[in-house]
C-alpha cells in the first residue's frame, strides 16, 4: 500500500514537473509558431499555388508547376552559382583571417582592449550603409581606393564594371564586416584554452609555429567548426550589401540568390515562383547545415 502511494506520488511528481517545464516553454513555442512556422507553411502553400493578385494570397493549387518553372530558369541556376562562388571564397577567408588576427593580437599588450572594441565597429554598421560607403570608396572615378592604389602604381580598377572585380568587391565588403565577429569568437576561445598545455609544450621545446599547429589548432578545431557553421548561416542570407553596392551587376555577375528571389517577388510580382525558390533554398540550406554540423561533431570527436 505504501509502495503504491509512493509510486503515485512519483508519477504525479513527474507529471507536475513535466507541466511546469512545458508551461515555461509554451510562450516560446507559441511565439515561434507565429513568427517562424506560420510564414514557412504559408510560403509552402503559395509555392504550390498560383498567386492571386486580387486577394494578394495563394490562389488555385498548381502542384509542382512553380518548382518546374524555377528549375528550368537559367537565372535561378546562375544565381545559385554566384552564391556558391561567394560562399566558397568568403567563408574560408573570413574564418582564416578571423582566427589568424585573433592569434596575432592574443599576446599581452597595452591597448589590446581598445583594438578589440574597435573591431566591433564594422559589425554594428548597417549593411546598406556599409554597401553605400564602400561604393563611394571604390568608385573608379571619385573613390579614394583607386587614388591610393594609383600612388603605388596600381590600377585604376573598375571595381563595379568588371564581373570578377565586382564579386571581389562583395567579398571584400562582407569580409570587412564579418571578420571582426570571428576575431571576437576566436579571441574568447584562445583565452579559454588551458594554459598548462602550452606551458608543457614550451618546456618540451615547442617553438611558436609548433605551438600554433600542434597545440592551439587541434584545441580550437571544434570552435572553428562551430564558427564556420554560424557564419555559414549568416552568409547564405547575403542580400543587402549586394543591393547597396553592385545591384547584382555588372550584368548578373553578383546577383546572389536572395537578391534574385527579392527581384522576382517584388519587382516582377512572381510571388508563387519566388516562394518555390525560397523552399528550394531552405531545403538546400538545411541539408548543408546538417552536413556541416555532422562534420563539426566528427571533428570534435577526432581532436
Amino acid at each position, binding site marked *: 500500500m505504501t509502495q503504491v502511494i509512493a509510486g503515485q506520488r512519483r508519477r504525479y511528481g513527474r507529471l507536475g514537473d513535466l507541466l511546469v517545464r512545458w508551461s515555461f516553454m509554451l510562450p516560446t513555442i507559441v511565439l515561434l509558431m507565429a513568427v517562424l512556422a506560420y510564414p514557412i507553411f504559408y510560403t509552402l502553400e503559395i509555392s504550390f499555388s498560383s498567386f492571386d493578385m486580387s486577394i494578394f494570397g495563394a490562389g488555385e493549387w498548381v502542384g509542382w508547376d512553380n518548382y518546374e518553372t524555377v528549375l528550368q530558369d537559367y537565372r535561378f541556376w546562375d544565381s545559385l552559382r554566384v552564391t556558391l562562388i561567394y560562399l566558397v571564397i568568403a567563408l574560408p577567408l573570413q574564418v582564416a583571417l578571423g582566427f589568424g588576427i585573433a592569434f596575432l593580437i592574443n599576446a599581452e599588450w597595452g591597448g589590446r582592449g581598445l583594438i578589440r572594441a574597435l573591431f566591433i565597429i564594422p559589425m554594428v554598421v548597417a549593411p546598406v550603409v556599409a554597401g553605400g560607403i564602400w561604393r563611394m570608396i571604390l568608385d573608379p572615378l571619385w573613390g579614394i581606393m583607386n587614388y591610393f592604389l594609383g600612388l603605388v602604381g596600381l590600377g585604376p580598377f573598375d571595381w563595379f564594371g568588371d564581373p570578377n572585380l565586382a564579386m571581389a568587391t562583395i567579398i571584400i565588403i562582407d569580409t570587412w564586416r564579418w571578420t571582426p565577429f570571428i576575431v571576437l569568437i576566436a579571441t574568447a576561445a584562445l583565452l579559454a584554452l588551458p594554459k598548462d598545455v602550452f606551458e608543457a609544450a614550451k618546456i618540451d621545446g615547442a617553438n611558436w609555429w609548433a605551438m600554433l599547429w600542434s597545440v592551439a589548432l587541434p584545441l580550437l578545431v571544434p570552435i572553428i567548426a562551430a564558427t564556420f557553421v554560424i557564419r555559414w548561416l549568416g552568409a547564405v542570407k547575403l542580400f543587402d550589401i549586394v543591393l547597396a553596392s553592385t545591384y547584382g551587376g555588372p*550584368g*548578373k555577375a553578383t546577383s546572389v540568390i536572395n537578391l534574385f528571389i527579392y527581384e522576382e517577388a517584388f519587382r516582377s510580382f512572381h510571388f508563387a515562383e519566388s516562394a518555390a525558390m525560397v523552399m528550394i533554398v531552405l531545403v538546400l540550406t538545411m541539408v548543408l547545415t546538417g552536413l556541416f554540423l555532422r562534420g563539426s561533431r566528427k571533428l570534435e570527436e577526432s581532436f
Partner: protein
Amino acid sequence: MKSGYLARGSENWLLRAATVALMATGLTMASASAQDGLGTAEKPIQLRVIANSAFSHTWQSVLVPEFNKVYPNIKVTIDGVPYNEHLAKLMLEATSADPEYDVLVIDDPWTPQLAQLGALVDLKGPKVAPITSAEYDWADFNSAPLASGEWKGVQYSIPVRSNMLLMFYNRAHYKKAGLPEPTPALTWEQYFEQAPKLVQDMNGDGTVDAWAVDTFFVRDQLTPPIWQAILNANGGSLLDGKGVPAFNNEIGVAALEKHKKLLEYAPPGALGHGLQESLQTFRQGAVATMFMWGSVYKATGVDPKASTLTLKELGMQVMPVGSASAGTHRGIWTAGISAKTKQLNASWAFVEWLTSKRGEKINVSLAGSFPARKSTLNAPSEDWMKPVFSTLQESYDVAAKGRMWRIRSPRSDATQQILADEVARALAGQVSPKEALDVAAKRIAKVLK
C-alpha cells in the same frame, strides 16, 4: 378690381416670396452639395497621397499650401516611397481591405496593372464627371502624356509630373573639343563621330578628365529605355501589332550595340552607373553629354547647391536622330484616385486642382515639374522654361508618333525587369546583344501570353 388687383398683387408677392425662398433653399442646397465631402473648418477632411520620394517632400511643402488656399478644409498628407518599392506598395494598397491612401501617384507603365486590379476610379466616369468643373479642359493635354494614364479606353489617372528622356550637353566641352554645338538634327552616326573628341583633358594637366557620355548602364528597370529610344528612333518597336515581341531583330541588335558602344566613351565604372551616378558626373562637369530624364534640368542648371553647371553651359534637346526620327522615351507620373477611397470628392478636388491649368502652372513654377498641358507649354513664365518647354513639346510629338513608351500591359513590370536583366547582360559582355534580345523576347512572350 382693387381686390382683384390686391389679390393679383398679393399673389405676385407670394409668388416672389416663394421664388426667393425656393432660390434661397436651392442655393443653400447647392452650397451644401458643393461642400459635400470637402470638409468644414470644424471637421476637416484628411486626405492621404502616396507619391515617389523624389518629389513627395517638395509637393508637401510647396504645393499643399497652395491647394489649401482654395480648399482650406482638406488636409493633405503626401507620403514618399522610394521608386523600387513604389509599385509593390501600390499593389498591396490595391488589395488591402482597409487601404490607407486616397490618391495614388503612378509611374507611366503601372496604370494597366492597377486598372486590371480595379484599384482606380474612372476619372471620366459617372462618379467623377458630375463633380468635375465645367472649366476643366481635357482637350488641353498633349495626347502622349495623357495616354499614360489610360487603359483600354478609360482614363484612370492624369499627368502631374511629365518626364521625357532627353539629351543634355555641356557647351564648354563641345567648345574645348572644337565641335559645333549639337542641334536636334544630330544623328547617331554624327554623335559617335564626335564622341572620341569629347574624351579629353579639360584642365590641361595632361590626363583625361572628361568623357563624352554618361547615362543608364546598370542593371535597372530604367536602363532599357535608353536602348529603346535608339530602337524607336530607327523605326523599331518593342511589340508588333499583335502584341508579340518584335525587338529581337537587326534594328534591336544594332540599337543595343549602340547603347554598348556608348560605354567606350563613358567614364571608368560607367557600367555600374544609373540615375544618381550619371547625374553626378554630368553635374560635376566630367562628361559632355548625358541621356537623362528631362525633369533634372532645373536642379542641374539653376540650383548651385546641386550642380556646378549654369544655364549658360547647359543645353538640352531630343536624343539623336535615327533612320526614322529623333529619339525620346515617355515617363509620366500620373495621379489617380483609389477605388476604395471614402473621400472621393476631396480626392478629386485635389487631383482636379493639381492637374488644372492653374494647378499645373503652380506645380511647374514651385516644384519644377514638367507640364503636360499645351497651354502651359505655350506660355513659359520663367526664362529657364523657354528652351525646356519647346524641347518638351517636340519630344511629346516624337513620342506620340513613334509610340516611345514601355510595354502597356498588366504585366509591364515583369516585362521591364526582363529587359533590365537582358540589356544589362549584353552591356556587361556576358552575352551578345542578339542572344540577350532573343532570350528577352522569349521570356516576354511567355509573360504576356
